[in-house]
């Protein structure tokens, strides 16, 4: 059968159109990113998606850390980072999991997704055997974290954390300079000492800064700390508890009498800005805030603020806000090859080496309770006032309680909590009504 010129043109156009369509719908196949390895000259190479890249604050430490690993194992391994925005990072991991394209090393992800879906579905590699073979690593991880990450059958999927980064509070001594030893005060005495000083709060996004203060207030109530810890095993869905309502009553008073200007509707950045511009004397935050107080970031200061004037402390009763019963930052994909698993394990051993842990603590703050610090580390840490303050407060007697936002259903933490806070601040809600509103929301979110 002869092909006429017209048919040939039509066929060509149709074929081109079909090829374009095939390209559009992804028939091209090919490997996704973040998964597989290449072995060039015996070097195992992997790519891992991470949000700690580029302009992300975590990149300052993490990117050089990966480079140090690459240099140390130049003849064996190479890790390339794929930059993923933090906002969409957890969704990206879920998407990769659905496509069976998980990276060899997985940098966490949504906690509920890990515990309820990824691990039960067999997506993670059991590292319990490796941990037992490496006591130098296992001995550094937090006991609570190891217990939490160890399943009933002894398997361990998420690498338990070696560090804790407790949240306390920061104050600007140029605005508020208490003449008492704050560590000896009860919560009521601390609040009395604060008086009418302005406190930075945020209610927008998920009301993070408010949630930290509320967590401290709940933990200071009788039975409050245990009630919060109960959320580790099963999310809290009933807020009609005396400890919670009493804490909310105090929070409401603080929001109405002590909140810095623009606190209602403020994001975390707004709250931090209120502190860095001397509009608030106090803010609740974690050790990561120390970088904002460094002279190198003084461009963000205003109204005479000076980071050198800032001190930090854990909450009364030597209480720090941190969830030690939690998953770690890393886990390994079960689909990885043996070479890739070896790379992943060596990477974890590298990250959990004393030198790297100390470097991390100096860069981002926190404490490694089971690590014996080097003298050099102690000297370096003492140079950053707030890190030294928090480290001094973190002792064997320190009690840790999880942030309330981590103990309640995700939609309540990310949406309802911040949405209801303005009602509490402007007096539309009583503390009891606030508790009931959260209870209703949490119970609704817990339906199948």
């Amino acid at each position: 059968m002869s092909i006429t010129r017209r048919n040939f043109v039509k066929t060509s156009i149709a074929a081109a159109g079909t090829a374009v369509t095939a390209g559009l719908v992804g028939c091209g196949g090919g490997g996704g990113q973040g998964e597989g390895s290449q072995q060039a000259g015996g070097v195992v190479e992997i790519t891992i998606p991470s949000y700690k890249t580029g302009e992300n604050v975590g990149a300052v430490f993490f990117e050089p850390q990966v480079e140090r690993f690459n240099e140390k194992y130049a003849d064996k391994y190479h890790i390339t980072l794929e930059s993923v925005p933090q906002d969409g990072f957890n969704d990206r991991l879920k998407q990769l999991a659905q496509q069976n394209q998980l990276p060899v090393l997985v940098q966490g992800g949504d906690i509920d997704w890990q515990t309820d879906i990824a691990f039960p579905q067999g997506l993670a590699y059991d590292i319990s055997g490796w941990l037992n073979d490496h006591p130098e690593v296992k001995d550094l991880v937090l006991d609570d974290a190891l217990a939490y990450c160890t399943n009933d059958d002894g398997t361990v999927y998420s690498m338990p954390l070696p560090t804790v980064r407790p949240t306390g509070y920061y104050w600007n001594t140029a605005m508020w300079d208490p003449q008492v030893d704050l560590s000896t005060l009860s919560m009521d005495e601390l609040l009395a000492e604060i008086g009418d000083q302005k406190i930075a709060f945020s209610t927008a996004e998920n009301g993070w800064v408010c949630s930290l203060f509320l967590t401290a207030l709940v933990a200071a109530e009788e039975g409050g700390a245990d009630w919060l810890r109960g959320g580790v095993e099963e999310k809290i869905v009933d807020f009609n508890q005396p400890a919670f309502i009493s804490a909310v009553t105090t929070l409401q008073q603080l929001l109405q009498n002590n909140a810095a200007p623009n606190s209602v509707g403020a994001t975390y950045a707004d709250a931090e800005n209120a502190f860095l511009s001397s509009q608030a004397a106090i803010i609740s935050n974690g050790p990561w805030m120390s970088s904002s107080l460094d002279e190198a970031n003084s461009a963000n200061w205003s109204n005479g603020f000076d980071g050198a004037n800032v001190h930090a402390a854990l909450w009364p009763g030597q209480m720090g806000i941190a969830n030690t019963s939690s998953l770690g930052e890393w886990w390994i994909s079960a689909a990885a090859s043996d070479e890739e698993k070896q790379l992943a394990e060596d990477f974890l051993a590298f990250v959990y080496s004393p030198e790297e842990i100390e470097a991390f603590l100096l860069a981002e703050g926190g404490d490694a309770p089971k690590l014996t610090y080097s003298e050099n580390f102690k000297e370096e840490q003492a140079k950053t006032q707030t890190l030294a303050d928090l480290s001094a407060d973190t002792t064997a007697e320190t009690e840790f309680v999880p942030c309330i936002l981590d103990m309640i259903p995700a939609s309540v933490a990310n949406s309802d909590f911040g949405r209801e806070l303005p009602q509490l601040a402007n007096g539309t809600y009583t503390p009891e009504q606030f508790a009931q509103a959260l209870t209703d929301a949490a119970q609704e979110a817990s339906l199948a």
Partner: protein
Amino acid sequence: MKSVAASLRGRRSRPTSLERNNYKWVYLFLLPTLIVFVMFYAAPIIQVFLTSFTTWNGFTDPVFSGLQNYVNLVNSRGFLLAMQNLLYWSLLATFVHVGFGVLVAFVLFQKPHGWKLARAVFMIPNVISAAAWAMIYRFFFNNDFGVLNTVIRFVIPDFTVQWFYESPWAFWAVAFTWMFYAVIVTLVVLGDLMNIPAELAEAARIDGASGWRLIRDIQLPLCRSSIGTSVIVSVTARIAMYEQIALTTAGGPGNDTMSLSIMLVNGIMDYRYGYANAIGVVMFVIGLVVLALINRAFRMDESDL
């Protein structure tokens, strides 16, 4: 004698061999579009419908649960307020948003001095994303340093309102983030106005019509189709509206500015994909009903020209 129309009909019912030969090419050329449509539209929509009747966390196999998701949705705290808000925002979209856009189109159609510059300036907000507008409005409505309250305090020094965080202002504050940005409406209607044959206006003027009469009896009716299209676009945008709410009030205070889209995202956060898809189905059905009603109200399939 057979009429011309009958002759044409007869010809259409019996395609020539050349036409029959061309059909396979027509279908072949349609194939890429059909594949894309099935993969990216039809299949997901069918999946959303099917899984809305299941309990599903997005990863494990869905378990059939009948109408439970729909029952949960109707019984949820935010549903009635979300539907009420949708109704009110749709009315605002229809009468204020589209009305304002049509008004601007008619003003521009008169080609007053500087109308091209005015049209360009009116376009500017359209190149700014809804999310950016929401952030701008958060500053505009800020109680402490927002433009609005600062101006009001010149008259009432003690004035204080948290527009996005107090009832009933939050509803209106959210509405203001989109209500007067109607450039699409203006452009669509202006295009229709410019296509009205000059002879029609001339004839009307000869018959004594001028000014408002010309607009009411000639130009507005002839823009019916474009105004109907604008109403469809505006109301369906309200059904899908998410950024303007999520970045300002997140549905609050309480549930004052709740929307189905916010509820859907909250459902996904809690891994209630079946429930979230039930909300998606409700939004889809509302969209279809709105489409049908507006098509009928504006007689979109009829032409006056």
